[in-house]
């Protein structure tokens, strides 16, 4: 794996390898000294054109635990008119000598443009681009599901037959896109649940089923996993839905809906949560909620991704 730009071009074998390496990394995170020398002497830059404290510190923790040198570059503005261009920023970093770029950008495709551009010839990891993809989020979600389902016996397994409902603003969600492709590759059955306004026009071409009715979807598909997406409150001003109250009533994981789920159903959320809008506190704080595990697993998965693109190795070599 040269880059990690999208989950769509990741094979099942590569995906399971990454998850298995993340298991090894997870073991490191449980040790007293949470550090591996794997990336000693390598410099990784976290190039964030969009504010994202959570994802950036997760990558930073992953890089530091692998002993990489870390540069954080928060670039404001993305177009030529607003400031320094992506090209100039990248070439500046290339001149300083970096070994990998982790990029978060507001424009869909920016990491791919960077990887193809020739401006810099190092591995690129997509930390979220516009409304396109957020691959490491999908990997940490898959890792979390696998761990909950198989525990210590997770290694080597996919998510075959696991029923996942992804609920909320699919149209604008890079998390949803990356999850759809990765979960399908790992054998899960994905159903998207959203108001029709928040589904892509051509969603019928995706390898998923679609429902507009959350109660119906939960009752019919009996999902193993319900993944709630963050809803941007400003969407109601663009007529995607009338108001928060109606959204919450129809597509939120309310306390009532949550209590109707079987006790084994996992409740996931990529964070940050809007409590009381797309998810009730009853659901978010329940033992079924994986929200904090997702955060912890995020570090392990990002360690695995960095390890794979920077060392080209498929197994962790212990010293």
């Amino acid at each position, binding site marked *: 794996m040269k880059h990690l730009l999208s989950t769509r071009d990741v094979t099942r074998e590569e995906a399971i390898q990454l998850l298995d390496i993340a298991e090894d990394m997870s073991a490191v995170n449980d040790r007293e000294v949470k550090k591996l020398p794997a990336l000693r002497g390598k410099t990784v830059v976290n190039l964030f054109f969009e504010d994202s404290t959570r994802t950036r510190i997760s990558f930073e923790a992953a890089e530091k635990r692998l002993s990489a040198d870390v540069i954080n570059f928060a670039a404001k503005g993305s177009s030529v008119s607003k400031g320094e261009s992506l090209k100039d920023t990248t070439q500046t970093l290339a001149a300083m000598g970096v070994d990998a770029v982790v990029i978060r950008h507001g424009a869909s495709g920016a990491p791919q443009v960077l990887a193809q551009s020739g401006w810099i010839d190092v591995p690129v990891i997509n930390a979220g681009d516009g409304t396109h993809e957020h691959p490491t989020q999908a990997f940490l979600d898959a890792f979390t599901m696998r761990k909950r389902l198989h525990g210590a016996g997770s290694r080597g397994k996919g998510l075959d037959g696991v029923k996942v409902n992804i609920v909320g603003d699919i149209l604008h969600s890079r998390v949803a896109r990356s999850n759809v492709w990765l979960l399908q590759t790992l054998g899960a059955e994905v159903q998207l649940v959203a108001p029709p306004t928040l589904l892509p*026009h051509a969603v019928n071409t*995706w390898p998923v089923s679609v429902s507009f009715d959350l109660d119906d979807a939960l009752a019919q598909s009996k999902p193993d996993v319900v993944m709630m997406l963050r809803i941007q409150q400003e969407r109601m001003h663009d007529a995607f839905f009338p108001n928060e109250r109606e959204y919450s009533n129809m597509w939120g994981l309310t306390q009532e809906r949550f209590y109707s789920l079987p006790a084994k159903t996992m409740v996931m959320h990529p964070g940050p949560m809007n409590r009381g809008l797309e998810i009730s506190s009853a659901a978010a704080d329940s033992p079924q909620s994986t929200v904090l595990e997702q955060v912890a697993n995020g570090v392990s998965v990002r360690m695995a991704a960095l390890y794979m693109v920077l060392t080209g190795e498929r197994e962790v070599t212990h010293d």
Partner: protein
Amino acid sequence: MTNPDLLIKGATLPDGSRADILIEGTQITAVGKGLSSASATTIDADGLVVLPGLVDLHTHLREPGYEQSETVLTGTQAAALGGFTSVFAMANTLPVADTAGVVEQVLRLGDEAGYATVRPIGAVTKGLEGIQLAELGAMANSRAAVRVFSDDGKCVFDPLIMRRALEYVKTFGGVIAQHAQEPRLTVDAQMNEGEVSARLGLAGWPAVAEESIIARDVLLAEHTGSRLHICHLSTAGSVDVIRWAKKRGINVTAEVTPHHLLLTDDRVESYDARFKVNPPLRRAEDVMALREALADGTIDIVATDHAPHPIESKDCEWGAAAFGMVGLESALAVVQTTMVETGLIGWADVARVLSETPARIGGLATHGQKIQPGIQAELVLVDPATRRNFGVEDLASLSHNSPYLGIELAGQVVATIHQGYLTTDDRTLVAADVVSAQAEVVARG
């Protein structure tokens, strides 16, 4: 003093017959077999097709205001290399071409350069803002004699303004060229709305945003009895609306760009901003519908929408990139590749859609005429047998944002003749000082 006479030997006319063509001064003086002239420069046209000089109803020359992208000189050089002898220059310059002063400036720059007849297009509304009519009459009565008006780049979205504009230009036989794009349906739109946009996470540009404006405007044209031209049709649905309107007798003409005849939205998968264009590249079904409509006459003309942009406007992330592609140098080759090689149309049709009809829509009597003695010598010689991977060396534009770089295209312009003198000779652009000197000779009469 006159420019050298030219004798074209053995060219294939659009109807398939072979003839020699003698050009003396600015005129074609003889068309026939076995012509000779002691004084004329002879051009061997064996195997070459001769067409009336191409006329582009939709060019962005960028001057005044955006000279880092293109100037009237470099834009008409691109035209000449592509076989065009006339271009209609869109109004979205800086300042906008919404006054007689700006259109007269563009006219003068075109005349001085001498590569092609430049006909300025006037803005429909002041500053292209869609709110207040521009000085349409002043532009029509200026030395530039503007007849085509367009806010291209922006849609005349207000139905009342559109109605008034359609009515008003009847005063001087003008036509409104509409950029059909419903603005509210295309807020932040980045590419065709469909399977690819859903996957790439780029905000979609639905076909209905184009089709709904065309439907509205053909009905307005019917109501007002006015003449309407629709720029750059890009969807199968737009074709259906135009077909319906023409059947109903509505006075509407329509254009398609070369890129919408060849390229589809899956090109965007690369996030290569050279493929970012307004209207966006559409589906393969749309491309096929546009080709059929051009062949059956539903679509009247091909126009380039030549839209130069500097490197920094394209060498960046998709969302930050500018919309537009250069197209003058490649237009004829793309039409040959998509329409002639596929057997959909012949060379007489190429002459119709790239010269005769655009000249008629634009009110340009000196161009787009049947090749015969007594007409102004506006001609292009094309070698249909050439196959080439289109490259930067095939561009004369100041900007290089061509979507065809590295793509094989059929046919190449060998020579372009404007007002009786060569602007492209032996597949190469004639130097600017030679061309402007010859233009000056013509201007002095």
